[in-house]
């Protein structure tokens, strides 16, 4: 029998319209920032994609002033129905430029084009569509008869879903009548700046949205600026804690969406083949760079061997490689720094006695790649069961009774998401009620929708984004 090798099916990178330089977006204009320009790198090839100007504290101040002006003079007092028109226009333009955005996202972030094309970009557009619909109905959201906007929102987003997180932050802020100063992640600024182009194309009044690329210092300047009324941060727990400390006592509103160590619980009556799919989707989607990733698999002992065998066969079939290839399932790790962190945590798993299994899939010679890895015989005490790895590494634990499953699932400082796999409806409801997690998926995992609130417990942060509940974070109620 001949082996069937799929021919490479790369998406053309020309579609990304990559420019040699990108500039920050302040007060409706693309302008040179005062900071040292940063080079953004394609993690799949390690080549420099573009040079991006960065902001200084003075630039942050300028952007916040512009946002304040736009808020006072235009956006904050504009009728909701009018704001909705602008937001709908952004949504449609995101759809029109979907292919360009998808390719650019895969180049800059390293995620497979299949995911940027089928998940990131469509969901980003959906967030604008959904929130545009709310703009003139805020009085009917159950948050009081006449909820008011807060003012200027300072927003800092991570590198794992650069465009989607920007949409996730900007859309509700605008719908509720706030203006925005957004800082995209240092390693993935490009799609947020193309979104700024779209916002310019949609003719939004100058200053309503400002995008300031840069490193952590720029983010710190945004969140600590005294004229920012609301801070929204998605990222690491450590940075989140710092921000919370800074804002304590200032009366400014804050929402944090931080790390996670989600449990995916498989009971013995689960639909096993679909549970395997859900586990794969839970931890290998976006190379595991997902704060709500199902990084801890809790499987009932009676089906553990069978499930693990199926899982290994399935994971072996995952195709790791060029993110622009339409047949790639797992792309590149976003940065060398992150790759080193994953490698270090994976070694700790071996050192602490867990059994390591790594897919034998071939990896490209260049770029930052990590083969899908499954640790079995993991115990709650190991670092790989407690710390967020943020990579394609799954830790497998077992349990004997439903109570034990719930106890182990909740035994984490985090609490962002959880998965339950069982054919028994009553057990789904029982377990979901016991779970201390912001999102609980039943017989599925990693499903996102703008209508569903998303957020965490404990060290996973507070506040909700999306849905009716998510509006509250951007309104004075």
């Amino acid at each position: 029998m001949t082996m069937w090798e799929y021919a490479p099916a790369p998406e053309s990178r020309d579609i990304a319209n990559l420019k040699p330089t990108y500039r920050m977006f302040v007060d409706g204009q693309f302008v040179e920032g005062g900071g040292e320009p940063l080079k953004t790198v394609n993690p799949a090839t390690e080549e420099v994609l573009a040079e991006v100007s960065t902001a200084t504290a003075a630039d942050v101040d300028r952007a916040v002033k512009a946002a304040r002006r736009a808020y006072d003079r235009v956006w904050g007092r504009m009728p909701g129905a009018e704001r909705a028109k602008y937001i709908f226009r952004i949504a449609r333009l995101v759809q029109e430029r979907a292919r360009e955005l998808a390719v650019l996202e895969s180049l800059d972030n390293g995620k497979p084009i299949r995911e940027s094309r089928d998940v990131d970009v469509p969901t980003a557009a959906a967030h604008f569509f959904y929130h545009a619909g709310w703009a003139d109905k805020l009085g009917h959201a159950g948050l009081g008869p006449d909820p008011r906007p807060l003012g200027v929102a300072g927003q800092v987003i991570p590198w794992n879903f650069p465009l989607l997180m920007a949409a996730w932050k900007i859309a509700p802020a605008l719908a509720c009548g706030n203006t925005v100063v957004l800082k995209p992640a240092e390693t993935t600024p490009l799609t947020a700046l193309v979104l700024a182009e779209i916002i310019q194309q949609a003719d939004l009044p100058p200053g309503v949205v400002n995008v300031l690329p840069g490193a952590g210092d720029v983010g710190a300047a945004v969140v600590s600026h005294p004229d920012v009324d609301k801070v929204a941060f998605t990222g690491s727990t450590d940075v989140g804690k710092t921000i919370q400390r800074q804002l304590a006592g200032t009366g400014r509103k804050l929402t944090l969406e931080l790390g996670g160590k989600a449990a995916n619980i498989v009971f013995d009556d689960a639909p096993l083949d679909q549970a395997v799919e859900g586990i794969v989707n839970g931890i290998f989607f976006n190379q595991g760079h997902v704060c709500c990733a199902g990084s801890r698999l809790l499987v009932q002992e009676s089906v553990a061997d069978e499930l693990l065998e199926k899982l290994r066969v399935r994971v072996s079939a995952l195709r790791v490689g060029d993110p622009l290839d339409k047949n790639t399932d797992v792309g590149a790790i976003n940065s060398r720094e992150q790759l080193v962190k994953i490698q270090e945590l994976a070694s700790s798993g071996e050192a602490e006695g867990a059994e390591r299994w790594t897919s034998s899939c071939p990896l490209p010679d260049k770029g930052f790649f990590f083969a899908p890895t499954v640790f079995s015989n993991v115990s709650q005490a190991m670092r790989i069961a407690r710390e967020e790895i943020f990579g394609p590494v799954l830790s497998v634990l077992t349990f004997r009774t439903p109570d034990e499953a719930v106890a182990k699932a909740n035994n984490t400082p985090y609490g962002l998401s959880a998965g339950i796999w069982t054919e028994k409806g009553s057990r789904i409801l029982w377990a979901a009620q016991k779970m201390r997690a912001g999102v609980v998926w039943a017989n599925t995992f990693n499903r996102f929708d703008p209508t569903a609130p998303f957020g965490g417990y404990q060290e996973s942060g507070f506040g909700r984004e999306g849905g009716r509940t998510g509006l509250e974070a951007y309104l004075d109620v």
Partner: protein
Amino acid sequence: MAAPTTSPSLPPALADAVRDDASLRRFLHGLPGVDQVGVEQRAAGLGTRSIKKAAKLWAIDAAIGMVDLTTLEGADTPGKVRSLAAKARRPDPDNPDVPKVAAVCVYPDMVATAVGELRGTGIGVASVATAFPSGRSSLKVKLEDTAFAVEAGATEIDMVIDRGAFLSGRYGQVFDEIVQVKHACGDAHLKVILETGELATYDNVRRASWLALLAGGDFIKTSTGKVSPAATLPVTHVMLQAVRDWRTQTGQLRGVKPAGGIRSTKDAIKYLVAVHEVAGPEWLTAELFRFGASTLLNDLLMQRRTQLEGHYSGPDYVTVD
């Protein structure tokens, strides 16, 4: 239940499963459930694989070699069967390097004609038997139908299960029928048609697949082609999982045959991707995977020409037999 002639190589757990009606029921209902949303999502996801160039050419030739070229009409004549056999031997007269199809599939009374036309070619003669397509007759008639086809020289028998018995939970009866038809097949390969369009749920598809495998079916086949929906990708996924799991438990390799409604090369390639990634690359052979089709072959031939010649020539460049 009649004394089953199960293969002695069944592991003890599986041998126990077929001991009596109650154990069979317990076993089939103890199989893991199939989540409808999940399996349909996975099928749709795999359907987006981009297969082109060398990979596509390989897939087209593989698919041609897996076709059971089928005519199952009341109006079938010996002439029709003879021209179908000619097409099976040489699918594209202009391109002798095109592989032969796997088998020609006809009604029992046409088997002798097909056998005469295909002698020495290595192409199988498959016949539908057991009161095809409804399966509604006495066991005696079904067995005689089978014997008639086998005596006429059929190398493969496509039987239908009694869906009425299956849906009313009389698994033992369905099991017995398959076992006895398998016995009547002698050396001929047995393909068990589940008629998944009438089974209603994926859980039923999984149970019927296991029932057919336990009873000794060499292949599990989706449909007769006479009921809509016929073959679908998610149903085929479930059946591919069944043969994969069967191999894990017994070491034996059994085949899968989707039939009905697969008309385009694009669709056929989606099925091959599923075979490759759900069951595994070992199944990418006519020994273990077949397409039941009458019109698929022409599209495969047209697409093959398009790949090789760089332009599309149209349906007049392939034969209509």
